[in-house]
């Protein structure tokens, strides 16, 4: 899977814009780290990343990538499970056992890296920061966050 394809798929899976997932001035290289992890033998069963890439091609060819992901990825049990793990990578930096269903209370196998933890999207989505990694100033918690990331579409 190419970096661009992975990034564009991640945009649909996360709901975050490409400017977050693969910014032009990319100091974090978070997408690269995740893709490298996914393509390291042993982390994802052989062939699954190729299947995901092929499904993504079909999803984009339909002209509506969100509907395409529903049709070609989320409707396929194996690819949906992999997509769930990719969402959890982006949102929390954690990786779960692909062989078991992701359910409330699943134990993570690993945190990909400290960087992946700090870049987790879950925190900014609710106007917060990763626990243990605040770049805010004293007293910020006394007032409502200026915005939630990204802004709700409505």
């Amino acid at each position, binding site marked *: 899977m190419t970096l661009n394809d992975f990034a564009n798929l991640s945009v649909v899976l996360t709901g975050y814009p490409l400017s977050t997932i693969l910014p032009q001035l990319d100091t974090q290289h978070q997408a690269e780290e995740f893709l490298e992890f996914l393509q390291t033998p042993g982390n994802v069963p052989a062939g699954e990343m190729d299947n995901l890439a092929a499904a993504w091609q079909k999803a984009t060819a339909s002209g509506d990538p969100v509907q395409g992901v529903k049709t070609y990825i989320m409707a396929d049990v194996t690819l949906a499970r992999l997509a769930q793990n990719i969402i959890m990578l982006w949102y929390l930096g954690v990786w779960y056992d692909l062989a078991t269903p992701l359910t*409330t209370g699943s134990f993570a196998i690993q945190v990909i890296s400290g960087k992946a933890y700090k870049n987790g999207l879950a925190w900014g989505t609710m106007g917060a920061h990763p626990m*243990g990694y605040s770049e805010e100033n004293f007293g*910020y918690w006394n007032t409502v966050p200026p915005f939630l990331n990204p802004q709700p579409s409505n």
Partner: protein
Amino acid sequence: MSTTQNYDAIIVGGGWAGSAIAWKLGLAGKKVLILEAGIPFQSDNREEFVETFFLATAKTPEAPYTQNYNAPRPSVLDIKQIPNPPEPPADCSSPIVSIDKGGYFIQQGPMPFGSTYERLAGGTSWHWLGTCLRLVPNDFKLKSTYGVGVDWPISYNDLSPYYDEAEFEIGVSADVDEQMIHGITFSPDYIYPMQRIPPSILDQVLTEGLKNVAIDNNPLTVTGTPAGRNGVSNIMNDGTVYNNGRRLCQGNTNCTPICPIQAKYDATITLNKALQTGNVDILYQTVASNILIDTATGEVTGIEYKQYETKNGPQTGSGTATGSKYIIAAHAIEAAKLLLMSNSQLPAGVANTSGQVGRNLMDHPVNLSWGSMPDPVYPFRGPLSTSGIETTRDGSFRNTRAAYRIEIGNEGWNWPAGSPYTQLQGYVGEQGLFGQDLISQIQHDFVRQFRLGYLIEQLPEETNYIVPSANCKDNLGIPRPEIHYNLDDYTRAGFQAAEQATVTIFGAVNATPSTANRVATGGEFTYQNETYYSNGAGHVMGTHRMGDDKTTSVTDANMKSWDHDNLYIVGCGSFPTGATANPTLTMMALAFKASDAIIADLDLNA
């Protein structure tokens, strides 16, 4: 085997109380040696600890500090329900395997003891929340006021000047006017070093929503919690602006298990100051293993220790530390264990004529209530807790049931239900949400999460105790703590009252109780046909209590052993009752009180 030079004082433990006493003695020109069981602290350790925390799949209070099999510590991951009869611990012949499999404690039940601690320089201050509440005057006289528990051998007024001193050393942010509840008084013109920490949005919502609500005739007033974290400095009475050289709190929402920027006090600060007096030496990776007694005079003559180089390696040295005075500041469980395992000359152990060493083990069992607010309160921002409800800490109900304080949590359902991890697993794995739908769900649900923690009082009970395990040892061959623990009906009735308070509070603010699965704590119990869940608060108290009567207490009010004239035993183990506040500030105040007594003792003998 080596013997140290003759010091004025030998201190076992470079944690909170040990560092405080070492500093005071060092300032007074006394020569001090600290024996610290764990690893030293260097300035780059914090960054390593933080990275270890980031990489931990379970973000527990212990997560930043990896297990040290030569000075092991318990982990909350090992706290489980205990079968009846308890199962024997796994693989006790192989300490490392055994600790990895079943945890450091040998839990004998019937309930598991839910609290943990750290064993490294700075002690459990490494995973301290930062709460610096004073006890209320009636906490010191529970027996004479309410007919339960015991009285302390000191009053609030006796401790008040030491509270002042502890608050200055820690650097406490609080507002005097807010803290004067249930008879708490302050010295004339007293000011805390820093202004109160600004309240979170949740604090503000609860303050407003509970304005006209009372329980047991106590109004549910929300007040700022005195915090050992840096806020805006006050101008002190001598005209100087308080400045401890540390940074302002950035609200990392991670006080436990580690403040990444040391805006929060920890005991390495005072430990470093102690070492800088030039009068204090420290031996790291040096585990006290036996207290030697002159049976003719009753005096302590030395403390034997074992040393190691790596956390899972073999013993590499041993020795005996000698001095005029001996101070055990090793944590409530470790101190009691050391006293009891030093039984080669005194069969019942050192300082144990009363039979009370290791007994009266207490915590503040926590009842967690969590739910969703009707409007966003934006959790996961700011310090883990900035306010609480303290008005519930005293009243005539203490005749029959435990008091509690209510800690308001700023970390959503993180503690009770593993948020945000668990909810996200459900959204993504079970509901199949992705993209904008996922964002909308998070932005609707997570910003409304809140939780309350009721810290419930526990009475001293002889049947709650720790002893050195007869069979299970750590990697140095030192016995591990065997714990017997339960909650009595007085505390259980406190849980019942707490749940009733939750109904009142949630009703007043239109909150919806959560139906999320709770994180398993092992602390499930029933009381009057209702099920409750107890969590550890990390407040380990009572195992070498002080008192007025040497037949029922281990030390006097100066924390000097009744049995051994040159032995002091300090820390939260000194508490005769659990009382109604997080214990750390009181423990440090007591350590300063003990320091004065030790210095006076040394000067008398000089």
